[in-house]
């Protein structure tokens, strides 16, 4: 074989190996759909919407599962929404997220509201992108970015 063909075959081989390694390690999947943790949790009750990122807490900071999933949080996702007192008053009294987000361990729940509250707009975006199921009976508005005129 001449040198050109040899180089080409080598290139093909390397690409195949990289493809194989990459796909096995899930590089084509969404960022937050890891098998190790629970991914993004989006609460839609009592308000739309609040996001909890497992990636930020498990991967970036290195929290262990049992540190939160003892009595503070159930393993079942969105279980908290069915609790009667899942609101900011509870959080400010160091329940649920407020256990750590009290200003000492991590930022207080009275600050940086929109860090977790992605709002209706965040909720709409996630429904549009198919990341969450829409809540029954609610409208989801279209993409607003880029300065489109709204209404007449």
């Amino acid at each position, binding site marked *: 074989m001449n040198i050109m063909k040899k180089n080409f075959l080598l290139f093909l081989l390397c690409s195949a190996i990289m493809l194989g390694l990459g796909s096995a390690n899930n590089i084509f999947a969404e960022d937050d759909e890891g098998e190790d943790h629970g991914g993004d949790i989006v609460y839609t009750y009592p308000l739309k919407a609040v996001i909890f990122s497992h990636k930020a807490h498990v991967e970036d900071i290195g929290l262990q599962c049992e540190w939160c999933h003892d009595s503070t949080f159930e393993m079942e996702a969105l279980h908290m929404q069915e609790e009667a007192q899942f609101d900011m008053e509870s959080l400010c009294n160091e329940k649920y997220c407020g256990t750590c987000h009290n200003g000492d361990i991590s930022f207080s729940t009275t600050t940086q509201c929109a860090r977790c509250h992605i709002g209706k707009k965040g909720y709409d975006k996630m429904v549009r992108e198919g990341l969450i199921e829409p809540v029954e009976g609610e409208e989801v508005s279209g993409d*607003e*970015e*880029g*300065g*489109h*005129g*709204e*209404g*007449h």
Partner: protein
Amino acid sequence: MVKIQKETAERWGYSGIGALFSSKPHLFLMLLFGAVAAWGYAVGIDGFFKGYHHVYGVTRQIPWGLLISAYIFCVVTSTGLCLVSSIGHVFGYEPYMPIAKRAVFLSITFMLAGFTIIFFDIENPFRMAVYNVISPNFTSNMWWMGTLYGLYLLSLGIEYFFLLDQNHSMSRFAGILGVIFGVAAHSNLGAVFGMLHGREFWYGPYMPIYFIVSAMMSGGAAIIFFTCLAWKMNREILDHRMERAVKAVCQLTTMLIAVIMFFTIWKIISGIVAPEKYLAIMAFVTGPHALTFWLFEVAMGMVIPFFLLLRSKGTNYGLMFSATAMMLVGIFFMRYNLVLAGQLVPVFHGLGVEEYSGLLPYFPSYHEIAVAIAGLSLAITGFLFGEKILNAHQFQKHEIVPAGAFICPGCGGIHYKKEGETHEEALQRHHRIRKAK
């Protein structure tokens, strides 16, 4: 139909309704443009019943679009026609006198066309007649514009009546009123934009000034364009005096194009250093509206006509016709660009929010385009109508030449003869030609 007496008809140059049917091509054109106008207004009425927010392209962020631009185009051309023609028969500069009748007639026609266009933009036009009168807001430029344009139209109507009736002193008086109301109304139209402190692109004294100068430029272009068209229909209108008039208007128009080019250049340059204007300016210089700006407004509206008119020397009608035809299209886009420019940048752009990170989109809808075309077609129909029925707006001999005067075969002006002089001697005296010894 009002029965017009024979004497009056002769004085007015009224040729009778039959004149409309004298030329088949002309009749066909009139019916064609009339039909287009009828179609457009029918679409407008359909839009009225469907609800404008369903059929028009204007939005809450861009409330003024093609219809307002078309209205401004018609009204600006009307004011310009009045102002340019007033140079002659109101202020007495003799070379401009022959264009007077056609210019005033077209001024009225374009004004009415403009009113029909705005009728289909305002949501409650009938309320305007009531509340503009009983609940006026004297701080509102729009109120002043509406009221003064009403008075302007009235003055023009009176002026035209007296022009027809050959009562030149009364027509001059009405003409002065027309000029005063016209300039006042028109600068208020500019101030409608220029006094909005929240719209930085428009804010400032520039708008009223620009509107007046631009009006005269459009008026000059319209006079030349419609005179050329009228000549095609009736060869005899272009006598020596009319040629002189067209040349004078051409010179004025050329100079005004230069002034408007100057205005535009400095508007762009000064806008580039103003952060609040930069985005709007660049939208037209390099952004999505660059084509309408460079091709239509600049090339067709100003630069190419400027050189064509210069080259025509005021005597080459082919060049002048193409130049002014281009100008009228370009000027239409000038109005469109102006109306859009102040609205394209969202008012909350400075907040840096995602919803308003770019320019706002606007494109005229079918209904808007139809109504705009209807208005313009109405104006053209009116023009065609006037040419035939009013004897091509020609002045009668004795109007032009008072007793004891004559038309100079050299310069085309009116000269007065002294007692006992011959025409030649009077000519030589006027032009200070010394007799050869």
